[in-house]
């Protein structure tokens, strides 16, 4: 039963992915992205990674997508056609076509690589959680403690950068009020 659910969800995830790419207005893209995140979250759950499923929902769907929404709202890009693509299909310019070809190539390569890899059967029984909280914690604060601290610095740097970038420069300030 779980397998069927997995296949359905993966199909949904792919469809939502396409939705993100092909949607006319950014709003539609954001929503389809949200959909794909949910499907993936459930797949993680099926694979036995409860913590990650939760993280996926909380961080990705909750934080990052909201951020996107804010930006779209802030710059009022939401209406259909406000910044509609000039031409209806995206594959007009040669660059786009090459891009498509490369994307397809990437996909094929991925599939070929995956199929070639000879995996033994998975030994994990379904239903039993792989990443219990306490197991993840021991890992995170044990072997990966250095990476964890580095991550914190990364976050700090990002915050500073974002503020510096997006702060509105009031005209007439000390350095000549550049735009």
């Amino acid at each position, binding site marked *: 039963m779980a397998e069927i659910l997995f296949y359905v969800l993966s199909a949904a995830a792919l469809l939502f992915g396409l939705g993100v790419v092909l949607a006319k207005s950014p709003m539609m893209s954001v929503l389809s992205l949200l959909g794909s995140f949910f499907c993936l979250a459930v797949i993680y759950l*099926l694979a036995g990674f409860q913590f990650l499923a939760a993280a996926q929902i909380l961080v990705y769907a909750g934080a990052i997508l909201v951020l996107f929404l804010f930006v779209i709202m802030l710059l009022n890009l939401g209406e259909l056609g406000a910044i509609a693509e000039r031409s209806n299909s995206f*594959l007009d310019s040669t660059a786009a076509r090459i891009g498509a070809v490369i994307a397809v190539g990437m996909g094929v390569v991925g599939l070929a690589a995956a199929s070639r890899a000879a995996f033994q059967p998975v030994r994990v029984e379904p239903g039993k959680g792989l990443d219990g909280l306490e197991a993840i914690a021991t890992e995170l604060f044990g072997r990966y403690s250095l990476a964890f601290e580095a991550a914190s610095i990364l976050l700090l740097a990002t915050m500073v950068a974002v503020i510096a970038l997006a702060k509105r420069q009031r005209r007439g300030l000390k350095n000549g009020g550049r735009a």
Partner: protein
Amino acid sequence: MNVPSEHLLFLAAGLFAIGVLGFLIRRNVIIVLMCIELMLNAANLTFLAASRQHSTPQVANLDGAVFSIFVILVAACEAAVGLALIIALFRLKQTVEADSLSEMKG
């Protein structure tokens, strides 16, 4: 669920391809950013597939999981910075067209 790992990897590859497709085709920078998020998710999926593959009922190999946590973190930072840039760009050029930015010509 005892789905063979290949299928998980197929899904990841598909998602990744779509992400690249969007990344290369779309002219709207925000969509490009979203596609990057998509690609990162595909990477996450691969990590988890690997972690799942190498775990045994007694000992769970969680390296993949920890990695995907960090991937999520990086994705978050990347998205934040990307959006900040977009705002600055929008204020400068009133557009989010990718092609309009070509001042750095060689």
